[in-house]
């Protein structure tokens, strides 16, 4: 008994599955009648196929249905969230504007403060014949126009070298008038509002996400 070639085995396997053309099938069936080795091989192939076809089927150990998260579906954004986001952005803009206005106001107030304070200083220093007026040489026209910062007025001429321009002196850092410019209450109002709105939007989003996941899980379990 000859051992079938691999081509024969291939043909026999395809014959078993009905994959041969009519001509191939007829030719093979003729050979099968003459060659017992082909019959034996066909029986082997058939047995293998039969056993495989009867392989026990397992039930899947769990449900493979997808949750929206697994499927990459994002939970819907509640309508309130974008509204709160925009409101928060508006509050932030107002906060920045108010802050900017306040800073500009302080700068301009700081620049004006010496001029505003010049009158009383002049009246004290020059008008009443105080320290600086008595000891200093007569000031030039420019120096008279320029305001004298308060600290220098208070510390007297010994702090200012003669002939040094008073322009170079730093503006009154501890000027009680400048620092007493009130910070607008609106800065706090807008900042607080912006933060509250952001927190609100986040909270709503969090609650919505949780609810979405809970619903998805309960749907999947049911």
């Amino acid at each position: 008994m000859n051992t079938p070639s691999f081509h024969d085995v291939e043909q026999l396997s395809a014959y078993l599955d009905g994959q041969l053309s009519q001509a191939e099938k007829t030719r093979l069936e003729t050979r099968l009648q003459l060659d017992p080795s082909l019959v034996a091989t066909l029986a082997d192939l058939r047995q293998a196929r039969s056993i495989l076809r009867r392989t026990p089927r397992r039930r899947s150990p769990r449900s493979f249905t997808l949750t929206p998260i697994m499927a990459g579906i994002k939970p819907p954004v509640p309508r309130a969230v974008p509204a709160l986001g925009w409101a928060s952005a508006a509050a932030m803009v107002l906060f920045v504007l108010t802050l900017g206005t306040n800073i500009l106001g302080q700068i301009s107030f700081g620049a004006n403060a010496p001029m505003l304070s010049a009158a009383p200083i002049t009246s004290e220093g020059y008008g009443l014949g105080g320290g600086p007026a008595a000891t200093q040489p007569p000031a030039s026209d420019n120096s008279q126009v320029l305001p004298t910062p308060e600290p220098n007025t208070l510390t007297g001429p010994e702090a200012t070298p003669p002939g040094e321009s008073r322009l170079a002196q730093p503006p009154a850092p501890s000027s009680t008038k400048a620092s007493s410019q009130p910070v607008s209450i609106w800065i706090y109002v807008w900042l607080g509002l912006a933060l509250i709105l952001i927190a609100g939007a986040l909270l709503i989003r969090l609650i919505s996400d949780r609810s979405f996941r809970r619903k998805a899980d309960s749907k999947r379990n049911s």
Partner: protein
Amino acid sequence: MDEPALIRNAQHGDLDAFNTLVLAYQDIVYNTALRILGDEDLAADASQDAFISAFRALNSYRGGSFRAWLLRTVTNACYDELRRKQRHPTTPLEPETEDGDEMETPRWLADPDGTPEDLLDKAEVEHAIQHCLENLPTDFRTVVILADIQGLDYTEVASILKKPLGTVKSRLARARLRLRECLQSFGELLPSAFRLEEERTV
């Protein structure tokens, strides 16, 4: 089940429609993965991955057998898993003596193949088949699982594996012969119902 309608709805993002399809096909998908991988946990993971990939790639489905399309996805997931296993082979934790030598216990000394009698006791027919399947090269194993266990025709198998029809035919013939030899080695382990029963019918 109106499968085409469910597929259409799922393609438009209807997750409930897709999940109906999942429920219909999950056993086929899981069994295919189980036979290719030979491990229940890995098969479950591969099946889940396959359904996730299938949902995301659903718009690439252009008609034809949805079952074949799904089986292609799970086959790819199994190949990924096998490649991952090859890159990061895992070894079981083995007990060691104080000197660092491997501890000799009956469990660790046992022949992994076991005798036919042992296999008969613990594994029944399914385990014999799985054992023989795992001895086949992956490509041969997949062909025989798809054709003989899942009952797909040659054209479907060729389309799933993206191989020529001739390759499928040749691999299936080789795989059947090798499985026959392997199963023969189990001798009387196989119940009589599994012996040449079909020979009379063809």
